[in-house]
């Protein structure tokens, strides 16, 4: 993703006071692209969005739009419109006044403003609500007014700061599709900040995962979901089961040695950048399966098996989710049929669903020193 984009961010650093939030961040966003900035709270995603919008002065680096440097430009000279998390509608103005304010500031004639506001009300399904104040609207309607206010000025870039987090779950699912459909229809470039993985995957063309002010990985939703580059990204994308393994590279295979908690396995290397020694494996609950009985002791091919004991089972919908004790860890595994508590089982993880990384000095995360933070992020990522 190093090609020259429509919105270019080069070496951007920003922070509040002595706290550095962003550190030398590079990002290029193409015209008409929908990019989601995904990360847990405190990772710098909102700061990045506010720096793009012009509300945070960067301490270094540059931001350019269509080749023109806007780093020192005020927020309104950047051709961008921001939709706020709180919507930030003006409570003393009607819906029509809220939507038309940007045009009023530009000195457009009243008739033209009324026409444009009418168009947007139709587009966003707000017809007939033009005379109401925001206080008399539902959450979803307010959200659409905020969107209409941003779109009224025909921005080149639409910035969305967690615009769905204040909606209740059912409306959120619908609005996700509404916004991305609208963005495609208008061909507008959009940058969307969220901490909700599923939301980012459904809406965005490209996801940028931020971790402590740096880009941990970026790519299409499929790439991030199926080929996470670091344990942090894997955990963020839902692979929260973690196991410690020892392995050896043999040509294009990786041979996993039998350990206290796992049977031996022979897996395809599949381009993973691994070395001999300690490995960290991660997998999703729904990607593994549960088998009964003991293994035969020989190495499994293209799958990893972990012997364990069922500790608990629950039914969140679709499949039974089992909590399985493996060695000292407890792993979550889905199965279509429930297993009895205490039953001896084998967790079988197909090679393509097992994410392997070279284990760093410390058990958690790519930068061992902040293991607490990483664990916290993992938990938060699972909230969605």
């Amino acid at each position, binding site marked *: 993703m190093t090609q020259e984009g429509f919105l270019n961010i080069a070496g951007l650093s920003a922070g509040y006071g002595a706290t550095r939030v962003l550190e030398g961040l590079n990002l290029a966003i193409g015209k008409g692209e929908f990019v989601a900035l995904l990360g847990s709270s405190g990772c710098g995603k909102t700061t990045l969005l506010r720096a793009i*919008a*012009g*509300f945070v002065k960067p301490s270094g680096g540059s931001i350019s739009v269509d080749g023109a440097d806007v780093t020192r430009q*005020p*927020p*309104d*000279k950047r051709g*961008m*419109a*921001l939709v*706020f*998390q*709180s*919507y*930030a*509608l*003006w*409570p*003393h103005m009607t819906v029509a006044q809220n939507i038309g*304010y*940007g045009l009023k*500031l*530009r000195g457009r004639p009243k008739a033209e403003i009324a026409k444009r506001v009418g168009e947007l009300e139709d587009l966003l399904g707000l017809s007939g609500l033009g005379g109401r104040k925001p206080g008399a609207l539902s959450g979803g309607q307010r959200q659409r007014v905020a969107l209409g*206010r941003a779109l009224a*000025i025909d921005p080149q870039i639409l910035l969305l700061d967690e615009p769905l987090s204040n909606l209740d779950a059912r409306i959120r699912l619908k609005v996700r599709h509404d916004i991305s459909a609208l963005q495609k229809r208008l061909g507008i470039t959009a940058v969307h900040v969220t901490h909700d993985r599923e939301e980012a995957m459904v809406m965005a063309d490209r996801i940028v995962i931020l971790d402590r002010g740096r880009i941990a990985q970026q790519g299409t939703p499929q790439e991030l979901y199926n080929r996470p580059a670091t344990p942090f990204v894997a955990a963020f994308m839902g692979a929260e089961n973690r196991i410690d393994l020892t392995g050896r590279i043999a040509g294009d295979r990786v041979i996993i040695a039998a350990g206290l908690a796992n049977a031996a396995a022979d897996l395809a290397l599949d381009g993973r950048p691994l070395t001999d020694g300690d490995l960290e494996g991660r997998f999703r609950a729904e990607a593994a399966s549960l088998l009964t009985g003991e293994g035969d002791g020989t190495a499994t091919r293209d799958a990893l098996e972990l012997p364990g004991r069922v500790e608990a089972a629950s039914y969140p919908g679709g499949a039974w989710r089992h909590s399985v004790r493996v060695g000292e860890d407890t792993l979550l595994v889905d199965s279509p049929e429930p297993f009895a508590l205490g039953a001896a089982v084998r967790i079988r993880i197909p090679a393509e669903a097992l994410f392997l990384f070279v284990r760093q000095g410390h058990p958690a995360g790519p930068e061992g020193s902040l293991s607490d933070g990483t664990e916290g992020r993992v938990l938060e990522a699972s909230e969605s």
Partner: protein
Amino acid sequence: MPRRLLGLLLVLPALTVILFLFVLPLALSVVGAFETEAGYGLDNFTKSFALYSSDILFTVVIVGLSTCLIGLFSIAIGGYLTLGENPRAVAILRWLYRWPLFIPFIVVGQVLRTFLAKNGLMNNILVGAGLITPLQAVSFLDWRGIVIAFVWKQTPFVTLLLAGAMASVDRGTIEAARNLGASRLRILIEILVPQVATTLMVGLVLSFVTMMSVLSVPLMINAQSPTMLTADIAFRINAYGDYGVANALGLISLAATACVAWFYLRQSMKERG
């Protein structure tokens, strides 16, 4: 019903204080305003209007003008405290603007008397700076002095309320306007002030009532005619022992403040409905 009795007993001290120190004196003055030597009538009012109609007008105009100026200054100060981009200037202003709050009206009168007199500090500075000649120096110790005193003393109070309300306005609403290209002045007038209008009204109504009841400032700065009603009331009582006319004048000031309060109530009812 011993519990109900206990509740009543607990409220009783407060109720007694209100009854004897507020309601009763108010009722007595209202009655007193209509008491004349020949029984009840409107004589006191006729006399009040005959003698003091210019003072009534003077009072309403002075206090009204001061209220407007206080509103303007407090919006300007509160707006700068909220929207100002120079953190040092904001901090200095925040520290400075509250000082007059802690100075009593009588001291304000005293200070401004020495400051605004014909050969007071202000004119000395202007002459010293070569801006005016000594012959051009005029005393500000008239209606202008009263207005200056009121504005100087009451602006911090309204600003205190207003700046608090402005600080609790969702910053997003300000940023959204900036994002669309609104200047700071437009944000202040079109975004910020409408959202704190109720607080501004409360502050101004309270200021209006306070200024209507100040005696020391008109006495210190402008004791000649025309003067404010408070000075006239004091004069009627102290010089003539004429409680009838004093009560009538008091009732007239009450009517003026009631007008403002009614205006405020109507406005807030409209906003709620």
